[in-house]
């Protein structure tokens, strides 16, 4: 199945950043994600809700280009997934259950490494600004293995937005965080114009910051 490209979309409303059409993922005989349909305009926030095991993380990994769907079609940032996954590399910020940080490197070294992978100009200034926004200056030189779960999550959030992605995919981003950290991360994640897909168990909070919701399970 093929979905229309963004440029084919008529009308004055913003072109969709995400179009999901019967997107499904199975793990062997076990269904990992039930068929999902959704359209999300650029700049909107989609909340993904559902109980444990309903397929939230699977959906988010597919949208980030980290997992292939078994059936259905998806267009992410005008790229057909999985055929054109290479087109969205570097345009998606992903924060999953794992922080994607090297435990033996410091917070600053991890961010510098991510910046080099993304080929960022002016990386030092960007890292400094993010460390300030996340109130991590005092622990920036500590190895990740020495940080608490909450601080590690803050570093991981900085890593996810460091390259200023067009699409932010966040899987329970506020797990392990206190109220102050939540506010700080919400500020980091909420740059205007950026499309976001957020999965969480915190329905009330998620509904308050999202434009539409997708209920799984």
């Amino acid at each position, binding site marked *: 199945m093929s979905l229309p490209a963004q440029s084919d979309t008529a009308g004055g409303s913003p072109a969709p950043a995400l179009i999901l059409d019967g997107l499904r993922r199975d793990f062997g005989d076990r269904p990992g994600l039930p068929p999902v349909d959704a359209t999300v305009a650029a700049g909107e926030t989609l909340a993904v809700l559902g109980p444990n095991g309903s397929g939230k993380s699977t959906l988010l990994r597919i949208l980030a280009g980290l997992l292939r769907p078994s059936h259905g079609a998806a267009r992410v940032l005008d790229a057909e997934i999985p055929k054109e996954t290479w087109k969205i590399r570097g345009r998606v910020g992903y924060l999953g259950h794992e922080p*994607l940080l090297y435990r033996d490197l410091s917070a600053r070294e991890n961010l510098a490494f991510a910046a080099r992978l993304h080929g960022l100009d002016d990386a030092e200034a960007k890292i400094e600004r993010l460390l300030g926004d996340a109130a991590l200056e005092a622990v920036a030189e500590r190895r990740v293995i020495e940080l608490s779960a909450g601080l590690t999550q803050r570093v991981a959030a900085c890593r996810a937005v460091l390259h200023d992605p067009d699409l932010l995919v966040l899987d329970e981003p506020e797990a392990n965080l206190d109220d102050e950290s939540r506010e700080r991360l919400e500020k980091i994640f909420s740059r205007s114009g950026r499309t976001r897909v957020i999965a969480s168990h915190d329905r009330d909070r998620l509904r308050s910051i999202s434009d539409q919701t997708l209920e799984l399970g």
Partner: protein
Amino acid sequence: MSGLLAILGKDLRIELRAWRSLAPMALFSATVFVIFRFALDRERLEGGIAAGVLVTTLLFASLLAINRIFISEREEGGFDLIRLSPCDPSMMFLAKTAALTIYLILLELIAVPLFALFFLDSAEALPALAPVLVLAALGLAAVGALISTIATMSSARDLLAPLLLLPLSIPLVIAAAGAASPVLEAGGPGFERYGTWLAVLGLYDVIFCAIGFAVFDYLLDE
């Protein structure tokens, strides 16, 4: 190229902090030389036996680093990081091959003098061994990075890496021992078919670097 240097720099930095590969490899090599010394009950080795002891010891020691080379990428999310970035994933293969080559050359700088101390009359043969050992290190690193990628994706990685690597390394062992054997002959280094064996080693290196570079992206795709 920036991605290659970033990954290589990261790996070397972590190794310098934790010494998880080089220290065990050096210790293993020293222990194996002691075992050979008693098992063969000889104070001096020469020719094919000397070459065989040196090359097989380095091969088995290399397994320790090869088994570990992708562990941080698997357990700490490095595979996801590179697939989220615009960096060509094959750069990770080249970076891992370069890192393993550096570890193996550093190992050789420690293990070969020890080998000479245990088994050789003089250090006369060591300069001629250098090209053999550098080419063998690059070949082992390339085939090791390729096999380690496959093994890392499996739940039986500790078993799979040696089972796949050892048969594939037989041509490398034959060529390296073939080149080192005349160099380690009693009465001073000889160079019979030395150049031919070096060429075989070089060809082996090129083949496995090319295969690894070509297939790495597909191996990462679940």
